[in-house]
Structure formats: C-alpha cells, structure tokens
C-alpha cells in the first residue's frame, strides 16, 4: 500500500514535470532565438543555448523599425490609462450598486448583469461606426474610452463591497464625511486585494487586445504592439530572430505585472471564470 502510494507520487511528479516542459519549451525556444544570429537560426540547429550570444536583435528592432518604440509607447499609454480608469470607475459603480440606495439601482444592476452576457466581438462593427462619427479613429481616445468600464469587474466590486464591514462607513459618517470622502478616504484604500486582481486582468486584457486596435488604428504610427508585431512579421517574414526579439519585448511587461500581482491572480480567475 505504502509502496504503491509512493509509486503514484512519482508518476504524478513525472506528469507535472512533463507538462512543465511542454509549457516552457515554446517560450525558451523563442527566448533563445531572440539572442541568436539569423545565420544560426537558419542553420536549423536545435540548440536552446545560443552558440554566439548576441543582443543585436534587440538593438535592430529599435533601429531598423523606427516605429517599434512608438508602438511600445502607444501600448503603455493605452494600457495604463485604461487600467487606472477601470479601477476607479468599476469600483465606484460597484460601490454604488452595493451600498448606495438610489432610485433605479436594481434596474442598473440588472443592466450590468445583462452586459456580462454580451461578447465584445458583437459590438465591434457598430463601435467602429460610432468612433468614426466621433472622428476618434486613429486616436488614443478611440481605444481608451470604450474600454474604461468593465461589467465583469463592476460585478466583482459589487460582491466585494457587499461583504465590506458597514461599521467603517458609519464611523466615517459620524466623522462628518460625505459619500465621496468616505469612498475615497476609507473604503477604497481597504479594497486593495480586489483592486490588485482587477489590475492584472484589465492591464493584460488591454495590453494583449488585438481586434479593437486592428479596427480603430489604421495609421501605423498609432498601432499598439500586437498590431505592430503583426505588421512587423509581414515585413520581416523570415527574420525569426527579430520577430522573436520583438515578441519578447512585448511579453515582458505583462509577465512583470503577472509576477508582481500573482497571488491575487487566482482569486480573480476563479471569480471571472476567465475573461
């Protein structure tokens, strides 16, 4: 009995190790290519450690593709602004739906729930027409404004604030704080775990978004990194060393956010069920 349990444990570890390998091979292969010369890549060798380690590829993507830096900047600007606004607006709406007794509250809550069922792809074309009529195509606001609130996280914040201790707000009220002061000075600072979970999902979603930028941004100067990467690939079809270097530059910030907020990630996933 003991022996069979030990054997089982080894089988399980073997399975996990194998799956870890499957997870990491594509990434390490891409990472290693980004440090190899084109000659080494084209030779078809399968060494994961570069024979001649070089940073040339990283150098080249910024010099040969003058817009690369701009794409990086665009992505950062959009993702950071979208994240900040989402944290603020989703929390405000979630708080109102959980705690403030205003007429029509049930109706608005029902609307938020209904919105959860509607996938983004479906509103894409009319969104394009509306942005076009605003003259917002090829602009930051065209990418930012439509995504500054998110029904999923409004719902999450509402659930969070429903369980928030009422005593703190009552104490704040006795201290003469109004709703806004209470929210910003007392409630929001205590919502950090929920905000952290939101930060990861909103930032990643915005950073990795492909379809909306594809439709809104046609001017290469306004591309975000996913679009730039796609254009870059079209231009440097066989220069996989450069494409992989560009991919790595793109992946790093998202990875950093993930590493930093990792412990809040799981609760976010289990809440949203993905997306």
């Amino acid at each position: 009995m003991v022996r069979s349990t030990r054997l089982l444990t080894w089988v399980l570890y073997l399975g996990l190790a194998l799956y870890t390998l499957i997870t990491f091979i594509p990434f390490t292969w891409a990472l290693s290519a980004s440090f190899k010369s084109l000659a080494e890549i084209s030779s078809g060798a399968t060494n994961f450690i570069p024979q001649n380690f070089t940073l040339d590829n990283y150098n080249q993507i910024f010099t040969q593709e003058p817009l690369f830096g701009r794409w990086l900047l665009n992505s950062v600007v959009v993702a950071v602004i979208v994240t900040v606004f989402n944290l603020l607006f989703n929390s405000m709406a979630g708080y109102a739906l959980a705690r403030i007794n205003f007429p029509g509250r049930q109706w608005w809550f029902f609307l938020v729930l209904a919105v959860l069922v509607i996938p983004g792809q479906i509103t894409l074309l009319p969104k394009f027409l509306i942005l076009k009529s605003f003259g917002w195509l090829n602009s930051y606001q065209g990418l930012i404004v439509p995504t500054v609130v998110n029904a999923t996280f409004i719902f999450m914040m509402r659930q969070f604030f429903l369980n928030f201790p009422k005593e703190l707000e009552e104490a704040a009220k006795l201290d003469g704080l109004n709703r806004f002061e209470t929210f910003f000075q007392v409630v929001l600072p205590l919502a950090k775990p929920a905000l952290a979970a939101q930060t990861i999902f909103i930032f990643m979603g915005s950073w990795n978004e492909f379809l909306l930028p594809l439709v809104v941004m046609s001017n290469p100067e306004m591309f975000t990194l996913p679009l730039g990467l796609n254009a870059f690939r079209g231009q440097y079809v066989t220069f996989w060393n450069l494409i992989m270097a560009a991919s790595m530059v793109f992946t790093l910030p998202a990875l950093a956010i993930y590493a930093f907020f990792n412990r809040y990630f799981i609760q976010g996933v289990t809440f949203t069920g993905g997306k």
Partner: protein
Amino acid sequence: MLTQNFWSKQSTREGLSGYAFMLPTIVVLGIFLILPIIYTIILAFHRVQVLGEVSYRFNGLKNFVRMADDDRIWIALQNTAEYVAIVVPIQTILALGLALILNTNIKGKSWFRVAFFLPTVTSSAVLTLIFMWIYNTNGLLNHFLSLFGFSAYNWLGDPDVALKGIMIMNIWATAPLFMVIYLAALQDIPESLYEAAAIDGATPWEKFWCITLPFLKPVTFFVIVMGIIGTFQLFDQSYIFSGGSGGPNNATLTIVLLIYQYAFKNLQMGYALALTLVLALIIMSVTLIQRIFFKEESLD
C-alpha cells in the same frame, strides 16, 4: 413609484450620489454597448455605405437571405464545429487532470500553478508567432519529428492541418485557465464526504466516481460552455496565422474573421452586421442555456 420619503433631503442626496458614482458607467455602457446593440439590430436590415460619410438604405431581409447562399459561412461554421468537437473535450479533460494532480498534497503545487499559467497571460499575437515559427518547415517541430524518421513537412501550408495547428496551441494556452477553475471547485468539496466514504471502505477510484465527479458537474458544464463560446469568438490566432485571409484554402476561416473581412475588406458593412446579429444570437443562446442549467448562486 416615487415615495414621499424619496423627496426628503437625505434620500435626495443619496440618490444624487448614487448616480454620480454610476455616471461613467452609464455613459460608457450607453454609448459603446447599448447603442451598438441597437445599431446592429437596425443596420442589419440596411445596406450600409462606409466609405467617406456613412450612409444607409433599408433593404429588408436581403442580408439574411444572402447568407443561405454564402458558402464561406458554412465553411466558417464547419471549421468552428470541428474546432469545438476537438478542442473543448481535450482541454476540459486536460484541465481536470492537471487540477486533480495539483489538488493532491504534492509539494510545490503553487509553483506548478504559476508556471502552467504562463501561456494564459501571454498575448495571442505572441503565442501565434512562436507557434508559427515552431511549425515552419525548418522549425523545431520538424526537427523533433525527424528524430523519429519523419521528413520535413509544411504544417502551415497544408489546409488539412493548418487549423489543427491552431487547435493544439489553443488547448495548450487555455487548459491552465480552466485548471484553476477546477482547482477552486475541488477545494469546495467538503472533506467530510471523503472521510465518510473512507469509513465505508471506498477505494480512491470509487471516491473519484461517486464524490468528485458528481460534485464537479456544474463546473464542467461551465467550462464546456466557456470553451464553446471562446471558439465562436476565435479571431486573433486565425488572423495572424493566415495574414487575415483565413487560408490556406479557408482552412482557418472563423466566423469573426469572416465578419471582419466583409466589413473592412469587402466594405459590405450591412451584411457584416447581419452576420454579427446571427453570431450574437448563437453565443447568447449558448450562454443562456448555461445560465439556466447552472444556477449562479453568487448572484443572490
């Protein structure tokens, strides 16, 4: 509906601050969600001109009638069906398997969990490029297979395997997400059930079949539905993989890609909107079925 109480100063202030807190949400959801839905429903029955100034002309059911003769819709639906039939079962079983392993008292499980998640947090654009490189004729996959005596193969150019390449990538990228959902569900199973079963002399296998699996039924349903919905929304991977064409020979054509092509390549916005409406109905009915079967306790 307005009670007298509402007009008291306190309530008025409460109502005003409520709407102040809700204002950004109401404005943005109104303009970029409610309005687009109304737009889609109305414009699906119009011929829409998008070049220059947007203009439209009512053309009744023409857009919908045209769908019946549109072969590419059927190809896209067929691709989607094939995709669902292969990807959803495999990724669900893989996710469950990984979750079951990580739910044992194995050491380093949080480390494995973090590691497995890597593909899920990486952008679809980057993943697609990495896999295209691995799949290419001179790529890692062919080198690996040559160890077993297979000759180099053009995986990307063959219509019979192109979609399968995307499937493998997506199973790999999505399974960890569902794994986490399964893990959370596994942790909700009361330990007392297993203890009771142990007293009754149940084997681990019997415990799995009689306790674990029945308990996971709602989650499994959820995972399958999410998988199906995700499939219907497949776009990025196909677009990057095929350079926007859905090729080779329509092998990677998806419904959203088709809608994109009609709207922005063929400039037939009205027809594209009609297709969007159909897609919306498909996705929403799948979601509704799930909501009905899987009562969301969290909503109460």
